[in-house]
């Protein structure tokens, strides 16, 4: 065993986080610390209308009275919120970039290196990207093409300027600033994010995506995404994230709100690969995210798919409020933790409309000394008659120093609904690995095969090109986890 442990550690040290580089760009940053002045300054910096400043200030004052929640199965050292920079942006020409040529070549190179081309000409596949670095969005591609269909896809800041009515109507309507500690914090200081509006009857012809990159040190990233699908509209949305390797922990607290009206369908996929910290648990991103969708209309559907491999700490529960009759909520998740990573993730399905349906498939994979928890709530209210939920929570353990935990909460207030919950915990069998070895497959590859097989049900839900990336990522994340 001793020898195995050494081997594991060696291999882990060798397997590197691919996205850990830092870009040298000139930044414009605020001083560390958070106060009402900082909130005002952010709003002023972004030249926001009065309603935005009021929203931020209300959130900030509310947040000041709150305490960080302790209920999650996570051990986090005290976070000093005065020791964080709340706004940091690459310096740009006064008016902001209008075309690809106005973007700092260093920034372009950064996104190229991440496999995200900001140049529409160079993109082969039909994916439109909003690229966010630190506190601001640097470029949104295919904006004009989409605009022809009436689709609005732009940075949140731009939406505030160009479509204030829509922002005012929907911002905070799914996740109010009073929702929780991190939601309040985000509402006070968020600096950018993506905005997406699909008008009535339009099916978005390409995948929309936001790529989040943290670059500057000591900086928190606080972004908001707002997606609105009007009646009969549909869209598939992707989100990716990476950050440099640093010894200090960095904070990421985001909000995603989705509104689906009658017959609308929104599919939201995430591959979260923030820097997870090193093999001893030093550094890494603290990821506190509030994601929630509201199936406001009848027959609407919101589907969350997430592959969580990064972050030192993940606190995240993409949820669905099933308000409209016959609406459908789905949550498919693979969460991998290795070394000293901690994840407390799951979902909430709130059934309010009649005949509402929800499906939860959660696959946790723990290795090293990590802890991986599923936490989920299925609530069926009195009026949500004939509602159905199916939940499946599986945990896979690699090694004997890691933990897997399941915290399901089920509340059913009517007699006509059916709620099913299945849970399994298994270990990757030594006999499975030996079987692969005997056919000539190395242990690392065998684990990759077995883990991908285990997670297949979820990976299959991802858009094609994302699925391949996610498979590789799972394998890399677990490299060296079994001797």
């Amino acid at each position: 065993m001793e020898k195995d442990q050494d081997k594991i550690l060696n291999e882990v040290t060798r397997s590197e986080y691919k996205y850990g580089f830092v870009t040298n760009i000139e930044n414009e940053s605020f001083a560390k610390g958070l106060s009402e002045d900082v909130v005002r300054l952010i709003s002023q910096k972004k030249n926001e209308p009065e309603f935005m400043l009021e929203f931020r200030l209300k959130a900030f004052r509310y947040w000041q009275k709150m305490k960080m929640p302790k209920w999650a199965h996570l051990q986090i050292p005290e976070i000093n919120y005065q020791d964080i920079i709340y706004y940091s942006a690459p310096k740009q020409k006064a008016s902001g970039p209008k075309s690809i040529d106005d973007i700092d070549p260093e920034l372009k190179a950064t996104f190229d290196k991440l496999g995200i081309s900001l140049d529409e000409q160079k993109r082969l596949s039909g994916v439109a990207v909003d690229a966010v670095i630190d506190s601001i969005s640097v470029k949104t591609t295919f904006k004009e093409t989409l605009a022809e269909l009436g689709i609005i896809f732009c940075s949140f800041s731009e939406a505030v300027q160009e479509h204030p009515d829509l922002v005012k109507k929907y911002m905070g309507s799914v996740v109010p600033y009073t929702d929780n500690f991190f939601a309040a914090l985000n509402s006070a200081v968020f600096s950018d994010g993506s905005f997406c509006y699909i008008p009535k009857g339009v099916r978005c012809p390409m995948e929309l995506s936001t790529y989040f990159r943290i670059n500057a040190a000591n900086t928190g990233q606080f972004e908001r995404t707002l997606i609105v699908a009007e009646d009969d509209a549909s869209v598939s949305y992707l989100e990716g994230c990476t950050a440099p390797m640093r010894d200090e922990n960095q904070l990421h607290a985001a909000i995603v709100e989705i509104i689906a009206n009658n017959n609308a369908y929104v599919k939201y996929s995430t591959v979260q690969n923030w820097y997870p910290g090193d093999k001893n648990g030093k550094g890494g991103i603290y990821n506190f995210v509030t994601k929630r969708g509201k199936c406001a209309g009848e027959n609407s559907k919101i589907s969350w798919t997430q592959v969580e491999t990064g972050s030192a700490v993940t606190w995240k529960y993409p949820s669905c409020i099933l308000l409209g009759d016959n609406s459908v909520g789905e949550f498919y998740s693979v969460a991998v933790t290795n070394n000293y990573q901690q994840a407390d993730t799951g979902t909430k399905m709130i059934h309010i409309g009649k005949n509402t349906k929800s499906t939860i498939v959660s696959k946790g994979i723990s290795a090293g000394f990590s802890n991986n928890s599923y936490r989920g709530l299925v609530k069926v209210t009195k009026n949500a008659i004939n509602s159905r939920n199916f939940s499946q929570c599986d945990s896979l353990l690699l090694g004997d120093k890691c933990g897997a935990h399941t915290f399901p909460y089920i509340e059913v207030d009517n007699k006509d609904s059916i709620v099913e919950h299945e849970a399994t915990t298994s270990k990757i069998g030594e006999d499975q690995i030996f079987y692969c070895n005997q056919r000539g497959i190395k242990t690392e590859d065998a684990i990759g095969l077995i883990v991908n097989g285990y997670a297949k049900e979820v990976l299959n839900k991802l858009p094609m090109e994302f699925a391949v990336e996610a498979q590789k990522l799972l394998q890399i994340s677990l490299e060296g986890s079994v001797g």
Partner: protein
Amino acid sequence: MLSIKNLHANIESKEILKGINLEVKAGEVHAIMGPNGSGKSTLASVLAGRELFTVTEGKVTYQGKDLFELSPEERASEGIFLGFQYPIEIPGVSMVNFMKTAVNEQRKHRGLEPLSSSDFLKLMREKKELVELDSNLTNRSVNEGFSGGEKKRNEIFQMAMLEPKLAILDETDSGLDIDALRIVANGVNKLKSPYNASIVITHYQRLLDYIVPDFVHVLYDGKIIRSGGKELAFELEEKGYDWLKKGIVV
């Protein structure tokens, strides 16, 4: 091809193999028989490199190399195949994906280019026919939900795909009905050549009606207590193992 000298092996400090000697040459078929608990499966596992067992003494040379210097996957790529007594299920991993990974890993080890998808599928079709394997099975997850007979046929199918130099079949006949037995034996016979060898571990003489061995060895209490030609198998069938046991001084 394979030379086993005075092999001793333990599991959790209990000695199972107590000095095995065996020589296997290319072109030969060896049958190893013996009562339950005599160490037959342990021998197969030790040769394949299962870590559960500790080799305490002895030497095994395979094609001029010290076998114990090779990892299990290296042994596989060097041409050693183990047909499992209890094939393992791997949920979610399709047979196609599993076999493709295995074939290409072994090719890589031998310095060959990976097979293209079309060549690979062609090879699969060819070998499936050889063992009369239902084509639906290869679209399913590895051994998941396979019947006992299907699992065993799947082992022979994998053997056919990997074309090993030395095939060790651990009780491949157990749990097979007579038709499945014929198919499995047929597969083994078709793969026989002057360049490869097989070690067939079995409990019953029945399999040896179909796979004719050049040598039969009786394993008892961790040692080979009798070796002979194929007629030894008939004798065992007739008399059981007791007459041999009596003659042993432990």
